[in-house]
């Protein structure tokens, strides 16, 4: 396995946040409504991890370093882990495990429906993230995993519908997300300069 330290570092960096939040909740440091705070932070954490995952490919293109791609799957799976925790926290602290209410929410609330759709997509991506699925699905695997762009859209819509009065924070995430998607348009991708590998390339090109 290449980049073992880098991989472990990323693993720890993603793991530490939920543990810290749980500790804070236990230590009464999250205020009077810790359940709501946890749900919100885990949701936002999911979005942030999704954006980080989506920035691995552009970063690799930009720097030529393969380490970015080496942690891409791990980050995607962390995104999935956060969304699972987000869902569990929602079920426990907001719904209080009231399953009939969950049925009502699933039927009536557009932002819940959008959130669940995003979750289902992430579930599919997580289940097919192993080498076996990659081999079996072949060319279709790549197509399937473009679902991640849809997940980003659903996630941002989910968040937009929760915003009550100030769009600033949402706008920042949406702008980053839009930027990362624009980088994937072929004409743009071709123009991403290689900062590190460039020097090695240029002389060859001139010939």
């Amino acid at each position: 396995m290449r980049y073992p330290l880098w991989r472990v570092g990323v693993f720890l960096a993603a793991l530490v946040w939920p543990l810290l939040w749980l500790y804070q909740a236990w230590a009464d440091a999250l205020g009077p409504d810790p359940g709501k705070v946890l749900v919100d932070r885990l949701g936002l954490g999911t979005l942030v991890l999704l954006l980080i995952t989506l920035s691995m490919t552009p970063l690799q293109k930009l720097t030529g370093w393969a380490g970015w791609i080496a942690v891409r799957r791990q980050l995607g799976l962390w995104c999935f882990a956060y969304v699972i925790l987000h869902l569990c926290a929602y079920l426990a602290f907001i719904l209080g495990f009231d399953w009939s209410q969950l049925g009502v929410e699933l039927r009536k609330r557009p932002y819940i429906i959008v959130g669940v759709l995003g979750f289902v997509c992430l579930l599919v991506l997580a289940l097919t993230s192993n080498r076996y699925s990659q081999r079996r699905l072949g060319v279709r695997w790549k197509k399937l995993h473009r679902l991640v762009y849809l997940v980003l859209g659903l996630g941002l819509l989910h968040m937009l519908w929760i915003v009550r009065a100030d769009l600033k924070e949402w706008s920042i995430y949406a702008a980053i997300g839009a930027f990362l998607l624009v980088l994937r348009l072929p004409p743009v991708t071709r123009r991403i300069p290689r900062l590190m590998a460039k020097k090695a390339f240029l002389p060859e090109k001139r010939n």
Partner: protein
Amino acid sequence: MLIKIPKASDCHESDVTPESFYLSRRHLLGATVAGLAVGGLPRWATAGEAARYSDVEPGDAPSWFSEKLASNKWGAVNVKDEAITPFKDATHYNNFYEFGTEKGDPAANAGVLKTEPWTVVVDGEVGRPGRYALEDFMKPYQLEERIYRLRCVEAWSMVIPWIGFPISALLNQVEPTSKAKYIRFETLQDPKVMPGQRSGFALIDWPYVEGLRLDEAMNPLAIMAVGMYGRELPNQNGAPLRLVVPWKYGFKSIKSIVRISLVSEQPKTTWQSIAANEYGFYANVNPTVDHPRWTQARERRLPSGLFKPNVRDTQMFNGYADEVASLYTGLDLRKNY
């Protein structure tokens, strides 16, 4: 005064002070007798009153408030068998979007708000319009403590001991004309001290505006508050003057009021202007009418711990149906949410 037998509603003016409250007072008196530094404190009267509730940060009360507090009617309205929310939670978990949209923002940012001097304008359909310094505005009113449930539209709730006076007393002073049908309130607009008003992404058209039908305002439960937990209002809770309407969602209880107008038309209130399908003019607490994005049938009574969640059923009119339901007879509360 009629003596009512408590049924659907828990709160009655004739309620006996609950034992825990009484005991904490005993405790305080005992502590005083034991000579626990109370006499040595500056502004000892204020500090003494603040100690009615545990862990209350002493404020820096203006003199008009301290003077009025001396004749305050403690526990004039109370709750039965419900714990009062800790001071720290009631003052560090706030919606006051002028100071930011996070719950901790008001406590972090409202310190810079200057509440002295403060001017209140009374205008519109009134016999006695005017522009008052707050201490003059407050002169006619007898303060009393009202311990009310507060139910936020976001499905959390608290129990808070307010200090204030009934709006009906205010209306007696300003003499509404026959044209007055509604009362309209306006919050301070001062982008220099209110970061939320500087945000270019805010959906709110400042200043914040709220209103009540005149008969709602006349209901004895509706008060203007100037204090809580035995002290003056902390800035983040709407100092120096705010509305408290306990049978309506919290956003009706507008903070840091600078203008009170009596008007003939229903005022355009802030949340109704942003999203009329989510927030109505009435905004009565109603477990049977959902917010489009979440249920209103239940609420998280704060503090609600992670491992001991404090979720309870929401009561019609927040438990004040006996006192206020008659205001809405014949009104379709599904349409007039």
